[in-house]
């Protein structure tokens, strides 16, 4: 154990909040424990700092493909047994991959945590990765891409917007991967990825629940402590060149209703102690879309009737560059151009006139309350801790969030709007709905259909 740090997580209005404890094994595995004794359960999340942004061109989707293969077995725990063992213990398990990381989790009764550690430590170093399993699972992933992206027009708009908004940074590539890359992926690609990134010194273990931190520490050392560290490859710093003009992309797809997605390049949190712009951008998103009476819903949807739905979003925590997004669905008789004009007018209004004190106070009240509400979910608490740490931020930044947002002034909100929500940093993507009947798939016989009506 290299260090044992105790970080207070005492928050406004919260009684007896448990301290977050963190330590690191000699092999580099970071472990974060938050005791939460409300219910006799525990959540364990293992965060690998390997997401789609670590992939290379031609093998996009590899991080996510490996996530699937991680359930395909080791010598000690053959194919299918991981899920079976967790299920038999009354647990739930799953995993997810993003641009920034790949996360494996288990939710269990509190006394079954050891099983999760045993299984995760095993597949951290002993994955079988057979060619047969790869071929079958690759088909599943292609189906997943068809389901999540190819047949979802709005997902295709997002995919195209990202690929246009980013010229150099790997955020331009979809997490699920391009279909062509999935089709040409091999088991050796997967083996290479596993060798490269699956190591204790590239991972963070987050445990939240009805546990004792000292016991978790001993368990983690016992099961993960034996996994050898690896020399991690260099991560090249990839800085997106400054955008110097508005970009537009249009997607044609079968649909009934158009859609508009706009994204501005903005910063994310790097220095949790000194950065303030990300907090101001978060407040700005709240002023536009933080509640039912926020500007986009009140003005663009309900007063002007330009859209049936309009939103704003911004995530201040990311390994790569940030994006402030606006989106919406035009009302009948309105075009995506009308909606673009209306949304940009809302942006201009804040650039020119700022935000009023009531709006600011409202957004802050919501952040304070949300900080209490999030305590109702052990899973979400673990998510926050894992995300911050994997993206390179200190654990204390999670607890400091409320205070940092409270400190943001109306002038700072206006200042980030003026600085970042500018046309030169803007990408606009639109969905151009195509008729649903223009290209019929071939007629296929379906067994058993003839004797039915």
């Amino acid at each position: 154990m290299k260090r044992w740090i105790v970080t207070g997580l005492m928050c406004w209005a919260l009684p007896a909040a448990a301290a977050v404890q963190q330590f690191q094994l000699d092999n580099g595995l970071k472990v974060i424990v938050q005791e939460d004794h409300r219910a006799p359960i525990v959540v364990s999340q293992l965060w690998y700092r390997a997401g789609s942004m670590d992939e290379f061109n031609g093998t996009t989707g590899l991080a996510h493909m490996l996530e699937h293969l991680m359930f395909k077995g080791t010598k000690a725990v053959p194919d299918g047994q991981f899920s079976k063992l967790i299920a038999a213990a009354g647990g739930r398990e799953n995993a997810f991959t993003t641009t920034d990381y790949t996360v494996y989790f288990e939710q269990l009764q509190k006394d079954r945590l050891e099983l999760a550690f045993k299984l995760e430590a095993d597949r951290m170093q002993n994955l079988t990765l057979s060619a047969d399993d790869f071929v079958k699972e690759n088909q599943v992933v292609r189906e997943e891409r068809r389901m999540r992206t190819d047949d979802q027009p709005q997902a295709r708009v997002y995919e195209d917007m990202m690929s246009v908004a980013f010229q150099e940074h790997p955020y331009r590539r979809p997490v699920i991967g391009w279909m062509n890359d999935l089709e040409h992926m091999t088991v050796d690609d997967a083996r290479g990825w596993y060798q490269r990134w699956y190591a204790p010194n590239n991972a963070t273990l987050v445990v939240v629940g009805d546990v004792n931190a000292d016991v978790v520490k001993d368990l983690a050392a016992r099961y993960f402590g034996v996994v050898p560290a690896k020399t991690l490859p260099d991560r090249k710093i990839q800085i997106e060149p400054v955008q110097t003009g508005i970009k537009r992309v249009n997607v044609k797809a079968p649909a009934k209703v158009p859609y508009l997605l706009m994204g501005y390049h903005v910063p994310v949190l790097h220095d949790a102690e000194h950065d303030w712009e990300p907090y101001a951008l978060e407040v700005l998103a709240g002023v536009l879309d933080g509640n039912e009476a926020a500007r986009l819903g009140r003005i663009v949807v309900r007063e002007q009737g330009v859209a049936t739905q309009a939103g704003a979003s911004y995530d201040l925590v990311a390994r790569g560059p940030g994006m402030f997004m606006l989106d919406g669905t035009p009302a009948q008789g309105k075009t995506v151009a009308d909606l673009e004009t209306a949304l940009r007018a809302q942006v201009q209004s804040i650039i020119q006139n700022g935000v009023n004190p009531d709006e600011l106070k409202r957004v802050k009240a919501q952040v304070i309350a949300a900080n209490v509400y999030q305590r109702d979910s052990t899973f979400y608490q673990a998510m926050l801790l894992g995300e911050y740490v994997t993206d390179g931020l200190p654990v204390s930044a999670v607890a400091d969030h409320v205070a940092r947002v409270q400190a943001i002034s109306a002038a700072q909100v206006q200042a980030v709007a003026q600085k970042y929500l500018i046309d030169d940093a803007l990408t606009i993507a639109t969905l151009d709905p195509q008729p649903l009947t223009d290209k019929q798939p071939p007629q296929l016989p379906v067994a058993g259909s003839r004797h039915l009506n």
Partner: protein
Amino acid sequence: MRIWTVILGLCVSALAHAGLPIQHWQLANGAQVYFVESHALPMLDVSVDFPAGSAYDPAAKAGLAALTHRMLDQGAGGLSDNQIASGLADVGAQLSGRFDADRAGVTLRTLSHAEERHAALSLLTKVLDQPAFAAPVVDREKLRVIAALRESEGQPASLAARAFQSAVFANHPYAHRETGEIENVSKLTAPDLQDFYRTHYSAAGAVVALMGDITRQQADTIALQLTGALPSAAMAASTAIPPVPDLSAGVMRTIPFPAKQSQILIGQPGVARGAPDYYALYVGNYILGGGGFDSRLMNEVRQKRGLAYSVYSYFMPMQQAGAFQIGLQTRTDQTEQALQVVRQTLADFLANGVTEDELTQAKNNIIGGFPLRIDSNREILEYLAVIGFYHLPLTYLDDFPQHVAEVTAEQIKAAFARHIHPDKMVTVVVGAAVAGK
């Protein structure tokens, strides 16, 4: 379970077994109150549900119940939609709705500190008791509902769900989409909504659930405040929903759609809440298609053949028999193969039942995972509301593991034989234009 309070912990020690300490009482106005006290977090979750779902839509007015529900917070008690929304946000409260064929409900999450709690509950009271249904706002929201309905007509998954629902429930009130149809919604008027509200939102039908940082006395006061000015029970419409008839023949619906995958839904009417066979069907369905990677459908369709990312089955018990449904998506040229695999898997399951190993695995997961189902205030509130709305016993949650433990392989086989009839199955395919239609 330390999520429950010390005081109630003392009560529990006097009982034969430790359980969720649900307090239940009825108000003089007829409202049913369900309450679990917990001071672990300074917050309160409240829900109020009414038998006012889409099954109560009058003929030719499909969508009336949903629009009435949607309009509750769009102006009430002299406040505009924006005043209600900003008032809630000012105290960090979150108001949301839930709506299905049986139920129309409103949920509120608020800090329990007196100032925030009083402000939030005062707004919720107005929303429940004095909705305005102002004509211009009704017209505005109609347009948004119609836009969403139109959008869904371009989405293959929505098209499949709609075709499935209409084929499974035929002429029953469960057959139409919860938000209605464009031609019906476009004709709805403010007086229609007023009328539906007056006849379906009485205190006598209300179920109030409260979970969190208040006392029993406060819970009683809050329940009374929320329901005190609801429409009189004298005007209340019948809450009866007719039984769902069995299908008389199989149905095959195919809808061509230019997509990469076919959406496949297979099923028929299942069972109602409280059905005697429910636990056997629930445990059996875990093995058939409810238990993720423990299930046969997942094993046959995805693990062995890579035909789909997602494949599942479920029973959705409602006041009357809700649907039994199997669902998956697959590349269009694999549609036939996937259908064959699913039908064969179901046929084997019905013919041969489950193995003892499968049954043990299912029980271990369902019983061992029970604490995960009630590990948050939000989940407990959901259970309180369901127990109240469907008149389930207060010991429903406590008894759940025992009921599951008692299920036998024979019971599963017999229960599926009683309820699932492969010769009268609805099959919907959206995507590949299949033969036979």
